[in-house]
């Protein structure tokens, strides 16, 4: 159904999504603190810590992979520079 790619097992995927939601909640609680440090960066959060940050996603993905993590299963978001607000 999904071609040749091997997908994460359902139980493993469930645990990953739970962990990513915890990391997303953690960032929501610490946004004020980290916005100062990471303004203008793309950031990766894992286990309720900032795992890495970079100016663009390719650089961040490379850093995460060098740390032995899979960026597809890490909470990745951005803290835009002050002055940018997207009206979607």
């Amino acid at each position, binding site marked *: 159904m*999904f*071609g040749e790619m091997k997908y994460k097992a359902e139980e493993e995927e469930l645990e990953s999504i739970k962990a990513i939601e915890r990391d997303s909640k953690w960032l929501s609680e610490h946004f004020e603190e980290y916005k100062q440090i990471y303004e203008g960066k793309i950031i990766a959060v894992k286990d309720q810590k900032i795992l890495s940050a970079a100016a663009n996603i390719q650089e961040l993905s490379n850093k995460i992979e060098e740390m032995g993590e899979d960026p597809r299963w890490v909470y990745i978001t951005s803290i835009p520079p002050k002055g940018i607000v997207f*009206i979607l």
Partner: protein
Amino acid sequence: MRIPLIIRRAYPGEPRVYTFLTLAIRAMRVNGQITAIVDTGSPRTLIAPRDATYLKIPFKILPPSSPKELRVAGFVLPAYSMKDVTLGFLDENKTMRRINMPIITVLGRPVPYRAEIEHLPSIVGTDFLEDNKFAFYFDPHNKISYLEDV
């Protein structure tokens, strides 16, 4: 059954809050997750260029969307159709719920490139809400937001 959403600020200079949903994605040659803003102003669910990059979405095998370009947040972006997508998300009991979307739009980067595009979020649009019969509750004052079956 409710699907809890996360409310937080998204921009350093903007005091207002936004509401986010984490989604597991399965499609042809794609498996990973995104955290998207729920946006009732968007008729389409969109995967942002940043998220498409770390998901390693194979643009070369995706057909162009109709129309081929979309205007999002002031950017004109190439748009592609990713078909037969399964999305998973946690309900209030922390159980994974899965739904199928026939098409999700994936956004490419603009030409010429603009660095601000890295900050554009993925979006859960009204197609997701309407096709799967979800109501959307958003109380920014009390920081409560969720989807609910109707």
